[in-house]
């Protein structure tokens, strides 16, 4: 039996946390953002040193001064951001840092790699350049690299956050295969369905504290959520918006570059309009195209009964966007909370180009309070906030100007259950205040529960709009994969 025990008395990030892992086990690590999951895996993988506590591998006390030592001990981590060399081949990526002999030939490298890939049924070729692979395939390259280093413990940090449903299935097959080969997996995910599907046991952390570990058969979804958030969530998906008949937004024959062809839809006042589809279906580009970030054209765009020809910034018309990736597109991470909120609302606090910081402080304080953003002060850098709080900063800065219509793109990606519910509440409230809400998401449960109508995209085209009574995961998946429903 392999046994990792760790104890940290009196530390802020992790307080007397313990964690153990059996051979050939998939152990899910759950917790809201800021619960200490990342800190824990960084300690296991040698990035951080614990202040107190011990790590045991195979009953032997171990200590990793750096990630390289951890890898040598058989602990490999598949990070969310995959650290691969885009210009090198799969084989070269696997061999980088692992070449025993300097004069290994390319063909031999490819041969060895192909063998490894075949052994684990990875559908990639060793000679392919990594830049031609998609996210899921790159993930497999990282896993293969870990395996080539004889990893006995593989840590996967939200491996399913950026891949499609189909690819997730494939990944799970591979994880099951790893189990059979006595390799242990620490699996981190925000998606509870996946945890129930793949994990043998689950450990929950909250606010740096160890809450508990359970066999997956012995725990229900509700119990898990309760452990994670520390309170009952009456409803995972609150819904209290009221639709009126009035049409607030309408677009006809939208084209966005290669991504979106001939898409038309309308949104009613008070309605939450969903857009679903697989990765690469064009669902994200619909928003970026209408917002004017990607080159796009359309036959007609009607907002509140008025026809709009795009000549100015779309924000000026009241078309707002919460972009997909808050770190890359939503926030300036090095700036503080106040400046990030002000950035989109400078006209409110400036005259003749001069910014009133006094007014800015008032506004930022107001917004922080309104959305219950957890900050030590409005001067805190946003990069130090948790995912959920970062997303609330994005929402507050975008919503400050009361848009006519808002496109929310993956608004709950990578944030914890509690913050998700807060986002759903905000969405409902917005709809009731008469803002048109377009909710674009890859997470089917929230689309199904939250939206009044759903447009499903497949390869850049609309497969149709489902009405409330037709909305379920099965129908959406069928349309998303290009199958018509009768």
């Amino acid at each position, binding site marked *: 039996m392999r046994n990792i025990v760790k104890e940290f008395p009196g530390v802020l990030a992790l307080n007397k946390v313990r964690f153990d892992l059996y051979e050939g086990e998939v152990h899910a690590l759950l917790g809201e953002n800021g619960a200490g999951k990342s800190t824990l895996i960084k300690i296991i993988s040698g990035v951080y040193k614990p202040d107190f506590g011990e790590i045991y591998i195979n009953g032997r006390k171990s200590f990793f001064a750096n990630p390289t030592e951890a890898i040598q001990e058989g602990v490999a981590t598949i990070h969310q951001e995959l650290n691969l060399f885009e210009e090198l081949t799969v084989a070269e990526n696997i061999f980088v840092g692992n070449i025993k002999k300097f004069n290994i030939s390319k063909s031999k490298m490819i041969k060895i790699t192909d063998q490894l890939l075949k052994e684990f049924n990875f559908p990639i070729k060793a000679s392919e350049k990594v830049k031609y692979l998609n996210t899921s395939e790159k993930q497999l390259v990282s896993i293969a690299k870990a395996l080539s280093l004889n990893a006995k413990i593989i840590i996967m940090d939200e491996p399913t956050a950026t891949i499609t449903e189909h690819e997730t299935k494939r990944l799970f097959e591979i994880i099951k295969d790893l189990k059979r080969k006595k390799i242990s997996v620490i699996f981190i995910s925000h998606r509870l369905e996946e945890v129930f599907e793949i994990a043998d046991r689950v450990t929950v952390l909250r606010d740096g504290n160890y809450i508990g570990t359970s066999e997956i058969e012995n725990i229900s979804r509700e119990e898990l959520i309760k452990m994670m958030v520390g309170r009952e969530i009456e409803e995972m998906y609150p819904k209290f918006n009221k639709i009126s008949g009035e049409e607030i937004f309408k677009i006809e024959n939208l084209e966005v570059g290669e991504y979106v062809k001939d898409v038309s839809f309308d949104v009613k006042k008070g309605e939450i309009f969903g857009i679903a589809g697989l990765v690469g279906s064009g669902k994200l580009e619909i928003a970026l195209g209408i917002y004017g970030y990607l080159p796009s054209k359309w036959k007609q765009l009607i907002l509140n009964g008025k026809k709009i020809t795009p000549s100015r910034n779309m*924000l000026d018309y009241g078309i707002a966007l919460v972009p997909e990736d808050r770190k890359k597109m939503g926030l300036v991470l090095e700036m503080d909370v106040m400046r990030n909120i002000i950035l989109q609302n400078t006209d409110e606090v400036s005259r003749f180009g001069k910014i009133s910081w006094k007014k800015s402080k008032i506004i930022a304080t107001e917004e922080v309070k309104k959305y219950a953003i957890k900050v030590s002060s409005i001067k805190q850098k946003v990069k130090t906030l948790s995912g959920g709080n970062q997303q609330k900063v994005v929402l507050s800065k975008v919503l400050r100007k009361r848009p006519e219509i808002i496109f929310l793109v993956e608004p709950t990606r990578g944030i914890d259950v509690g913050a998700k519910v807060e986002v759903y509440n905000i969405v409902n409230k917005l709809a009731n205040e008469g803002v048109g809400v377009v909710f674009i998401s890859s997470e089917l449960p929230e689309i199904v529960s939250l939206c009044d109508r759903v447009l499903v995209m497949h390869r850049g085209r609309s497969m149709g709009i489902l009405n409330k009574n037709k909305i379920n995961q099965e129908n959406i998946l069928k349309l998303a994969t290009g199958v018509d429903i009768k």
Partner: protein
Amino acid sequence: MNWKGILKKLKEYPAIVGFVGIVIFFAFLSDRFLTLSNFINVFRQVSIQAIIAFGMTLVIISGGIDLSVGSVFALSAVVMASVLKGGSVLLGVLVALLVGALLGSINGVIVAKGKIQPFIVTLATMAIARSLTLVFTQGMPITGFPSSFRYIGRGDILGIPVPVIIMFGIFAIIFYISMFTKLGLYTYAIGGNETAAKLSGVKVDKYKIIIYMLSGLLSAIAAIILTARLNSAQPTFGTGYELDAIAAVVLGGASLAGGKGTVIGTLFGALIMGILNNGLNLLNVSPFYQQAVKGIVILIAVLIEREN
């Protein structure tokens, strides 16, 4: 403010600490160093580099770089000089400012609209402007200007040289821009995350053009001062100034990746470079060694910066 607060503030401006440290160091080694006249001398020498570096600060904070400042400096100097020869001081100065601002805007337009890396764009305009300078002067210096013009470089008010006064005036303006205006906020935002700035409704292209225009404009102001001081405009003016400016900005704590940096930091970065020159000269250190000392100081500064 208590000691801890002061210490914390100082940590944000390592260039100030470095400056004070170097001043103390030279004060011990040379008795001619810590005199008012010597300090006025240092400030006068630094003023030209500092003015260019203030413009460079905004460019670097916005995530760009301007390699053309030295050539813009030279071209505005020689064009102004030929107008001055025609008689009008005011017209000459205006022409210099116009040339600087125009060349800067061209940089900005190509960077913003052409979506080409600033390093490449300004490398090219650096070569083009230098070449135009040589063609314009046929490689000969232009000398001999009216005394009212020379006053800009040689005069003083209450014992303070005019170039130093101009430098502090520009410092105040750029400081104000960076801290209290939309332009300042947007500069940091563009450098920190251009996509996010754009999606937040910032007219990124427009502000980039303004930033590069300011850089060109400040190069021209520096050129006016040097031309007035030397009573001569030379086609080789400004060679290597881009590196001095970048060094001052980096010493001041800015990151070439953008989004970080302060004008105060740059001021002290430029002062560190100036005081090193001055102190080493007073100590009779061979000029052959001086570049190496500067290089080492820059490396140390960047290492300290990384620790933070």
